[in-house]
């Protein structure tokens, strides 16, 4: 993964995103006529209404916020029926929903794949039927229309840097991790580990334990780690829920202020915790915006205002992010909080 390529893809996707928004403003998208068929969209697609759906992994603040962002863009166009479907944390459910949407004649499917490989055959099938697939956060091995992702790896490197700075460049930290088998877990972990190596070689990662993305579980796990390493100086939660669990423990043990805790995602609860002086920091991504960009791309793909081939190879958009700490958390507007 070369950063220059990422940047080019980022610009391309931004340009397409703006094109869609501009198109919507010009009223192009509000009245897709029969002639849509002549600019490369299959005739069956030249219809009055378009169907789009988002298949999430399982209910969580992040997909809920994406869905809200997606709806914000799709709803005003009045020709797109949109629904949120739940993958129930099961590959087979996601695959079955993909099949159903394809046979339903959906124009675009937004997908947060549970697994990069397992959903690839479904994506291939969707493509054969002329359905565009846009993945969110977790890429698939089958190339598809577009992929919009939080910047997991580089964000985690920056978290490591900020965390090391807060700890004065020395001490012991623990990682509260997600269950294995998920790409973003690896990106968020590897980025953190590499970041520590690069910026703060004096900091030792003494524990890396699974806390199931869960606040309560993180409390238990961190208590166990603290028993083994009473001199632990900080904890990194691979998501905010686990980081907030670490904050709970620090509060309980009277370590607040001395114990450094970083999270990842940037949900409202985490930002408020930072403002209250409890959580040290987190990687914040405007997840609404992530959903809006995906929806903008979906609109141009569905209505044929831009031909799908304009995307060439699968386009890939890495979301900009902010390492939110007490100093800058105030710059995140209320409307950007999710």
């Amino acid at each position, binding site marked *: 993964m070369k950063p220059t390529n990422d940047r080019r893809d980022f610009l391309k996707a931004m340009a397409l995103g703006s094109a869609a928004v501009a198109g919507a403003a010009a009223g192009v998208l509000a009245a897709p006529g029969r002639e849509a068929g002549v600019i490369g969209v299959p005739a069956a697609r030249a219809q009055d209404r378009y169907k789009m759906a988002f298949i999430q992994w399982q209910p969580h603040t992040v997909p809920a916020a994406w869905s809200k962002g997606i709806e914000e863009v799709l709803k005003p166009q009045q020709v797109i029926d949109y*629904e949120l*479907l*739940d993958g*129930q*944390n*099961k*590959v*087979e459910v996601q*695959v*079955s*929903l993909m*099949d*159903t949407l*394809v*046979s*339903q*004649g959906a124009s675009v499917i937004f997908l947060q794949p*549970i*697994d*990069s*490989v*397992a*959903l*690839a*055959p479904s994506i291939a099938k969707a493509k054969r039927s002329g359905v565009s697939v846009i993945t969110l956060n977790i890429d698939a*091995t089958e190339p598809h229309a577009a992929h919009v992702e939080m910047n997991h790896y580089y964000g985690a490197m920056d978290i490591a840097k900020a965390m090391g700075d807060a700890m004065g460049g020395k001490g012991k930290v623990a990682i509260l991790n997600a*269950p*294995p*088998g998920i*790409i973003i877990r*690896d990106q968020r972990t590897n980025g953190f580990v590499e970041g520590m190596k690069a910026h703060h070689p004096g900091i030792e990662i003494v524990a890396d334990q699974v806390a199931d993305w869960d606040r309560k579980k993180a409390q238990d796990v961190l208590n166990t780690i603290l028993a083994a390493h009473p001199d632990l100086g900080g904890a990194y939660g691979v998501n905010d829920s686990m980081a907030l669990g670490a904050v709970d423990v620090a509060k309980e043990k009277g370590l607040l202020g001395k114990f450094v805790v970083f999270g990842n995602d940037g949900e409202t609860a985490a930002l408020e915790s930072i403002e209250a002086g409890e959580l040290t920091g987190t990687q914040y991504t405007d997840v609404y915006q992530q959903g809006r960009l995906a929806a903008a791309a979906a609109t141009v793909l569905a209505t044929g205002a831009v031909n799908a081939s304009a995307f060439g190879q699968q386009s890939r958009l890495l979301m900009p992010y902010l390492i939110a700490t007490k100093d800058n958390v105030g710059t995140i507007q209320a409307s950007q909080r999710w």
Partner: protein
Amino acid sequence: MKIRFSSAALLLFFAVTLAFFSVSAPRFATASTVENLMSGYAFVAILAMGQAWPILVRGIDLSIGAIVGLVGMIVFDLSLIFSVPGYVILPLALLAGALAGALNGVLIVYLHLQPFIATLATLAAYRGLTYSISGRQLVPGLTTTPIRDPWITGIETYFDLGGSIGLSRLINMPWFPLSFFIMLAVFALLQVLLLATRFGRDTCATGGNAEAARLAGIRVGAVTIAAYAISGICAAIAALIMVARFTTATEALGSGAELTAIAAAVIGGVSLAGGVGSMFGPAIGAFLLGAILIGLTLQGVPQFVQQIITGVILLAAVGYDRLLVLRRQRKLETAATGAGR
């Protein structure tokens, strides 16, 4: 007679459900929906038919989802780490499923554990084992490597039967997935095993009254272990179908599948009181659940409502089963008092 009646009632309910969605759900009565139903629920039907056996011996197998995960990961490791050819992997996968199932039976028979507890324990153990042998974590890069062995991916093949017999000229026919024919083969085998062999009769006798079966000279322990082994083999077949469909295995593969399988079996008229059931019922039960979920999704009914509806159907099925059991008991009691007079 009771079994035949409930099978007919189930089939009728299935037909009514299909008719209802054909009229009310947009694009339900299409070839692609039928294809999705066959490819998406054939493995559920196989799991349900397997689950019927432990229930027939008055037990339950909560571990089948975990066995699916374990067998899936064994297939994954053998294929991607050890490059074992598919024709060797297939029998090994079935063997692994049989052993995992038989272990459940051994725990129940020799350690006298409640089936619920024994299979709850193995559920956790098999899932843990799946994580610990996961090639996705042992070997970097395998998370994004699909399985390409034609013996395994070949399970996900579709046949244009309509085209080959010329029916497609008249109506739009679905393509039939191989997994559907595997399901039919499993159905035929298990149905014969249940109805036409001594083992099948022994299974029903064991579930009906284990003590009486023992006194009649039936090797109750062996029958019980075999019933759980069948459940394990069915889980392995389901795992192969899923791995072929997804071209990979995840650590969480099959989690929660036990609940769907139990629901399908019970809806299919397999009595939780043991000893009564068929293979036909669980298979139809699985496709019924599938048709309902697909139909409701096409109607745009939110998924949590779908889950409520599934729950209500399950409750109705369990209630109906309970009613039949009570009626059977009453009949036995009247017969007994009549004989005593």
